[in-house]
């Protein structure tokens, strides 16, 4: 399988002496949907900034589909599309002009650029706004405009730096569907996000970066399997005044109708139902608590803080 992005021993020391990246290495395979997660200031945006040629690296190597970003920048950049965290288009230009201009920077002739512009604006629900100055768009529309702009040269690797920040839930879900669609069509996607539910829902592989080092680089499945306990939310009836007791399980009331039950990997769910049934409590519905990744993320980042002096790196 081709490696879409290969980062080797990447280091960045800013002018003020702050070492943002301490020699990180990781690969993203072609076709992957990869999450790069980390707390604020961990080095995510610096990493993506270097890959996007917006930040100068101190040392190390970046290869995009085998093309070295230093020696073969033109080919590497042609393969790469970037959706930055902050709006970075000309607020006075019309929506369509922004896309056509961007295509021009990649040497795409005007006729072809216009066709692609229509295709992506329609795809992202912005066609009706094509003649509006971009400053008139809503926040969600501006985010979609940046995605359309990044796709104009049809990149093989798309980098999205917090693409759904500040976007309402409905729009976020439609963007997820769109990203899944282009990933299924073959575009490799690297995503950073603070919504861990987003990473869990979309991404197959994950890298967690903290204090300039990669603290975890594994598949989402492997990572989630590392959880010793799983939390289930159970809707119950009738209304309970006090929390039912379930022997050997940790149970908390989340509301009059809701129980949160912690189940260890070695435990079965049957005793939970049996004991609740004995107490006259009926389980009407049940679901996983959706912040499993969040729990892991917090534990990994906390661990790094404790071990920060060691600066270790693990790759599963």
């Amino acid at each position: 399988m081709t490696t879409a992005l290969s980062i080797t021993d990447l280091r960045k020391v800013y002018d003020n002496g702050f070492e943002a990246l301490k020699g990180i290495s990781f690969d993203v395979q072609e076709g992957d949907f990869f999450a790069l997660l980390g707390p604020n200031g961990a080095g995510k945006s610096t990493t993506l900034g270097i890959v996007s040629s917006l930040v100068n690296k101190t040392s190390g190597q970046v290869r995009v589909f085998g093309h070295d970003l230093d020696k073969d920048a033109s080919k590497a950049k042609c393969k790469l599309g970037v959706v930055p965290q902050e709006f970075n288009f000309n607020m006075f230009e019309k929506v369509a002009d922004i896309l056509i201009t961007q295509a021009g920077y990649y040497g795409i002739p005007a006729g072809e650029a216009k066709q692609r512009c229509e295709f992506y604006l329609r795809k992202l629900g912005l066609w009706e706004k094509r003649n509006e100055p971009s400053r008139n768009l809503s926040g969600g529309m501006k985010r979609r405009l940046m995605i359309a702009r990044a796709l104009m040269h049809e990149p093989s690797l798309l980098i999205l730096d917090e693409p759904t920040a500040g976007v309402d839930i409905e729009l976020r879900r439609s963007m997820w569907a769109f990203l899944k669609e282009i990933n299924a069509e073959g575009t490799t996607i690297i995503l950073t996000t603070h919504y861990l539910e987003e990473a869990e829902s979309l991404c197959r592989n994950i890298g967690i970066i903290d204090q300039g080092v990669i603290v975890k680089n594994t598949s989402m499945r492997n990572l989630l399997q590392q959880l010793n306990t799983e939390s289930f939310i159970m809707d119950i009836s009738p209304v309970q005044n006090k929390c039912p007791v379930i022997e050997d399980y940790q149970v908390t009331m989340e509301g009059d109708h809701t129980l949160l039950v912690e189940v260890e990997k070695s435990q079965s769910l049957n005793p939970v139902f049996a004991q609740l049934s004995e107490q006259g409590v009926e389980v009407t519905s049940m679901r996983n608590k959706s912040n499993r990744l969040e729990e892991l993320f917090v534990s990994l980042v906390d661990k790094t803080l404790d071990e920060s002096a060691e600066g270790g790196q693990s790759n599963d």
Partner: protein
Amino acid sequence: MTNRQLFIAFWTILVKEIRRFTRIWAQTLLPPAITMTLYFIIFGNLIGSRIGQMGGFNYMEFIVPGLIMMSVITNSYGNVVSSFYSTKFQRHIEELLVSPTPNWIILAGYVLGGSVRGLLVGLMVTLLSMFFTELQIHNIWVIASIVFLTAILFSLGGFINAVYANSFDHISIIPTFVLTPLTYLGGVFYSISLLPEFWQNVSLINPILYMVNTFRYGILGVSDIDIGVAYGIIIGVIIILFSYSMHLLNTGKGIRS
């Protein structure tokens, strides 16, 4: 990128730049036309009629070449400095930096964009001057080449200013405190032969003097300086500014962290 793709990228930047200054024509094209008309009326007609001859020509004829060059200089410089700084400020320079467009194409696009505005304003001022005096043409090749080289030189200057600028104040410091005094002291309104010898020699270190006089030579056939030396200096300065601009782009000064 293939040569065709490089040309498309260059053309895209150039068209974007032209579209920018024509969209805001009331800020970019109208003011120099009004200012220069006032110069023609006040300095050329009202005051000039009392001054009499300058360098063997009436005062209006003498100042017209200088005023045309002044508008070319200020508009070429002003276009690139404000456009590139805005591009930095609004961060849409990132659109270019992530693209495969090479730095020399970025520079060429912005510099030619600034030059087009300088030349367009120069043409407007030339047409306006024809309402006030009969314009002569001594050497069309000198006129065309010097005005083009001047526009390139000051567009490069504007680019370097924009790279170093960290606020909108910084883009007006050089035009106000350096460019305007050098232009006024660059022989636009007088022949340096009127100055004492010491100040004549001081004037010779002002590069704008060479541009104004070479342009005046192209129109009137008279100059305070040697035309060959002027071309040498102007081309030399362009090479230095171009090399320095490329160095700034390649190192990412002011545009990359």
